[in-house]
């Protein structure tokens, strides 16, 4: 029985990593305002949200099964309080930290009408921290981390997120730039003295 829990815990952990990778890539795509092949703009946002909710479900099963797996030696507190686990406090602690961040991301996003765009966006930056934390947790705690197939999955996930972040910081990222570019015909900003108005 506890073997079954262990298998389920491992499997859902792997699926969670793959889903979170997809979620981060789709979040970046949402931010770009560009359609993807086969996905119009509104659908990119919708799939980003659905994939996040699905990742939340898999994470719940992941921690739920390992909670009852006697070998993991976890309790409710060590699932959510980082670095409090009796065994492997560091690697399990990263898992707890990742879980907290992702829960915060999903809950604030579901309630974003109440929270308002500013606070919601601020919290959403945590996405970029949560993914590497979850990845490191999997590498450190995963029973399968050093198997060939898991290394392949890990490699593809890392490459996907690196590509997404590389695209995110590239110059031609957004389809519509957030700030209107200064028109070429604007008067030169030299010799006009110090800027006026409130800083």
């Amino acid at each position, binding site marked *: 029985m506890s073997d079954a829990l262990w298998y389920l815990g491992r499997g859902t952990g792997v699926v969670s990593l793959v889903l979170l990778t997809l979620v981060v890539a789709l979040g970046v795509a949402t931010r770009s*305002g560009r359609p993807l092949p086969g996905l*119009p703009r*509104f659908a990119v946002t919708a799939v980003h949200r659905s994939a996040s909710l699905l990742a939340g479900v898999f994470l719940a099963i992941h921690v739920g099964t390992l909670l009852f797996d006697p070998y993991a030696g976890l309790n409710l507190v060590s699932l959510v309080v980082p670095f409090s686990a009796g065994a492997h406090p560091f690697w399990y602690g990263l898992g707890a930290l990742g879980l907290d961040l992702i829960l915060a991301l999903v809950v604030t996003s579901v309630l974003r009408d109440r929270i308002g765009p500013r606070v919601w966006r601020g919290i959403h930056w945590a996405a970029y921290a949560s993914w590497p934390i979850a990845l490191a947790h999997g590498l450190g705690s995963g029973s399968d981390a050093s198997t060939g197939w898991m290394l392949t999955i890990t490699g593809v996930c890392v490459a996907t997120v690196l590509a997404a972040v590389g695209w995110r910081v590239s110059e031609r990222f957004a389809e519509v730039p957030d700030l209107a570019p200064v028109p070429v015909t604007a008067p030169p900003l030299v010799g006009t003295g110090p800027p006026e108005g409130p800083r």
Partner: protein
Amino acid sequence: MTTLHLDWTRCRGRGGCVELLPELIGRDEWGYPLTATDVPVPRALRGAAEQAVRDCPRMALQLSPRFAE
């Protein structure tokens, strides 16, 4: 009739609403929606308008049922 309100200070031209409500919203040459600030939404487009509100990445859209039919 339901009205769709667009908060121009929030909108950054991500274009989702333009795709969902082509009957009501066009796309200007900078990628921003081309529409009035308050657009009456016909009954048939109600669902699409609700999706546009939910999926606007910038939370720039609002439906106001206050203007009773």
